[in-house]
């Protein structure tokens, strides 16, 4: 039975990662055919970095991801603070409303945002409203729930007396936030920001409906590429993207692990105090 479990785990992992492995191997293949490994080469990467179309698009994606994750983090943290200070009933309702966009099919979110922008564009008599601004707004919108969801648990875990202690010692509510509360919820804010960044960086479905021809992101353009026969340099690009996101995710997990360790230590210290004393 134990062996079966191990085998099963390996099979699942293979299923999950084989496509990525094929792609990564393909990116180092000197031949054009994905099925035949001719010889090892970095040519595809060289070609990629010489490409004058793809690289600016990558930059576009990074810009949107950075800006949208920054805005979403600020807004989301504020929202989480607000939701946290609500009464339990209202809070549950608000969290429910916040979570719905997460499960909502992306294509529905995309289409509805596009319709909204078209509506606003008509109202304000702007032709071609779709562009950088609409893309950014859309990305902030779908990033918000991720930030709220990762900040909320930190707020819940925090001893509510901490904020009161700060107020008690002379902090204005704003001082209490930036001198005390923010230190407690920073891990949540950081992991929310990282999550938002990765979600935004690789978003295709929603972006596809709200981008304008003046500002295209990488995933949208890559979709156009797939209509033609794929070039090996695209494999190289995908491999790099995968690696980048993998690094961010590992970083996030390490952060969470460190944070969990710290709170375990604090808890142990508190218990030790109860049992043994000074």
């Amino acid at each position: 039975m134990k062996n079966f479990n191990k085998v099963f785990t390996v099979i699942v992992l293979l299923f999950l990662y084989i496509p990525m492995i094929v792609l990564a191997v393909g990116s180092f293949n000197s031949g054009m055919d994905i099925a035949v490994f001719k010889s090892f080469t970095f040519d595809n990467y060289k070609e990629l970095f010489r490409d004058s179309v793809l690289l600016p698009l990558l930059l576009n994606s990074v810009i949107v991801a950075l800006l949208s994750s920054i805005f979403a983090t600020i807004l989301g943290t504020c929202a989480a603070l607000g939701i946290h200070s609500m009464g339990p009933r209202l809070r549950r309702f608000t969290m429910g409303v916040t979570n719905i966009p997460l499960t909502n099919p992306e294509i529905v979110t995309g289409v509805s945002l596009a319709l909204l922008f078209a509506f606003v564009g008509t109202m304000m008599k702007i032709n071609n409203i779709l562009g950088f601004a609409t893309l950014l707004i859309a990305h902030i919108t779908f990033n918000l729930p991720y930030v709220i969801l990762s900040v909320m648990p930190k707020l819940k875990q925090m001893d509510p007396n901490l904020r009161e202690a700060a107020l008690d010692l002379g902090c204005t509510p704003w001082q209490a936030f930036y001198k005390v509360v923010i230190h407690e919820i920073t891990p949540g804010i950081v992991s929310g920001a990282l999550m938002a960044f990765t979600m935004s960086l690789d978003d295709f479905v929603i972006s596809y409906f709200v981008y304008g021809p003046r500002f295209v992101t990488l995933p949208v353009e890559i979709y156009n590429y797939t209509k033609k026969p794929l070039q090996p340099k695209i494999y190289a690009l995908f491999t790099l993207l995968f690696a980048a996101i993998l690094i961010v995710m590992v970083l996030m997990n390490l952060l969470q692990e460190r944070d969990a360790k710290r709170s375990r230590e604090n808890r142990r210290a508190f218990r030790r105090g109860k049992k043994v004393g000074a």
Partner: protein
Amino acid sequence: MSKELIRLVNCQMAFDDEIVLDDINLYFNDKEFLTLLGPSGCGKTTTLRIIGGFIKPTGGDVLFDGVRINDVPPHKRKVNTVFQKYALFPHLDVYENVAFGLRLAKLPEEEIDERVTEMLEIVSLKGFENRKVSQLSGGQQQRVAIARALVNRPKVLLLDEPLGALDLRLRKDMQNELKRIQQAMGITFIYVTHDQEEALSMSDTVVVMDKGRIQQIGTPEDIYNEPKNAFVADFIGESNILDGIMLEDRLVKFFGRKFKCVDFGFEKNEPVDVVIRPEDIDIVAPDDGHLCGTVTSVTFKGVHYDTIVDFKGFKWLIQTTDFYEVGSYIGIRLEPEDIHIMHKSEYSGMFGDYSSYSAEYDEMDDPDLYPEDAEESEEASEGGKDEE
């Protein structure tokens, strides 16, 4: 007594529809050690939080030095709080935790250093300046919390069950320590606890609360010797509480017998509650006794035996240093000053019968049981904490 500092006038507090404080009238004198004592959910923490400014009463006024401070936020009040779970700032070391309030007040660096050092000395934490808070034991964290509050030289220090998380031995030490600090600093302490022993041994004044109402205010001796109703008599120490009839001044009838007592001022033939403290009862030979009964259970308690005696179906608790075997037939004598008479109240008949006595009655004070009590749900309903 010295001058009045804080006064609560008709204070009411309701969370949603639940009334937590019902018409509280209370004043606090300067330099007084006052304890709010009561079971979980009696409203004592709520009262403290109103004084601290963390919640606004839904009715009534809070006066500080005669000025209404209902709408004054916590950071502008001349009170500081020691929280139940200490609430030290984990990202700061011991020194910076204590210096927190002084830095906010923008005092010069030398004065901050002087006062922090002095305060750490007072709480015997010299040499711990650079420790992280998580590296301290519970008792040490407790003292940092006290130092952090006192260094601001508040007029009033609010303490919310500050010793609740400490073990028994340490708790006793800290009780003496707190009393010493209070006398040395000469400021008002308002102390919240559910531990009656703590309340009696530390306080100048004890306020007994239950169901959001004040049951009795008095010195520890008053509260113990002259409880106003069955709740107070039962909550403070152990009590046998019996139904009686006050025949006339200084004469009460219970168990079909007339007893002389020292109480007066009741109506003729008024039904009353009679309190007899278990340690006041003298056991004698059956022939010399006012009442006779059979011992049904004996528990060794160290200083004394808890002896349960059945008198005509009503069981009494008697604390005696002499051992009487289960089944032995004994008599008791009651002197007039052993008997305390109370008016009937809503609590009559709820306490003071040891028929369901078990030796577990004092396990509520178990230091390992952290009081995750109804007070917490009070906080939850105004948005402090979720249901997890």
